[in-house]
């Protein structure tokens, strides 16, 4: 069975500090991985997906198949980055997606 693990419930960083939100997965097939973000009182929205290798709002994530990780990184945190972040894995087919438990990022001014 597929599983997504986000080991940190809360991550607090100072403004301007680097950010790394950890995500590890277990899946026997070829994974499709995503990061979703939920700002306060808003709907979840797709932040980025590994296949597009894009950078959104300064965030990047690299799929490391050897370490089965998909960590989300940003070199300099901003206050508006404070939100809940979910790592997610798609098993293809019906596009059913499994989510991690989420990490709350708190950027301290």
């Amino acid at each position, binding site marked *: 069975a597929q599983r997504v693990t986000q080991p940190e419930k809360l991550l607090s960083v100072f403004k301007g500090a680097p950010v790394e939100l950890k995500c590890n997965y277990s899946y026997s097939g070829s994974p499709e991985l995503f990061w979703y973000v939920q700002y306060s009182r808003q709907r979840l929205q797709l932040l980025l997906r590994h296949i597009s290798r894009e950078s959104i709002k300064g965030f990047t994530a690299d799929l490391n198949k050897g370490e089965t990780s998909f960590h989300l990184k940003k070199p300099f945190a901003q206050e508006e980055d404070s939100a809940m972040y979910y790592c997610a894995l798609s098993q293809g087919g019906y596009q*059913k997606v499994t989510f991690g438990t989420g990490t709350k990022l708190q950027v301290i001014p």
Partner: protein
Amino acid sequence: DAGITQSPRHKVTETGTPVTLRCHQTENHRYMYWYRQDPGHGLRLIHYSYGVKDTDKGEVSDGYSVSRSKTEDFLLTLESATSSQTSVYFCAISDLAGTDGGYTFGSGTRLTVV
């Protein structure tokens, strides 16, 4: 707008009563999903649909049923609400064709069972 709406946005109901939540989309997407969001559990899949009248169970389907009689509507019913079903419920849609698997989410329904 994202083309997906959920109703109601908030609901308080009593234990033992049936409750129906509605998800409506204007994107003509084939796939629709119901998740619940709980602290410490993240999002867990309740049921999903891969077409009109085609539905299947997710990992936490006990106590829930769904129906999809039209492409645009996906209903989630709590047959007899319990306090453990107090949660925030999110609907999501996706269109496999021509996409890379990302979901579009609704704004959520906050359900409280007292």
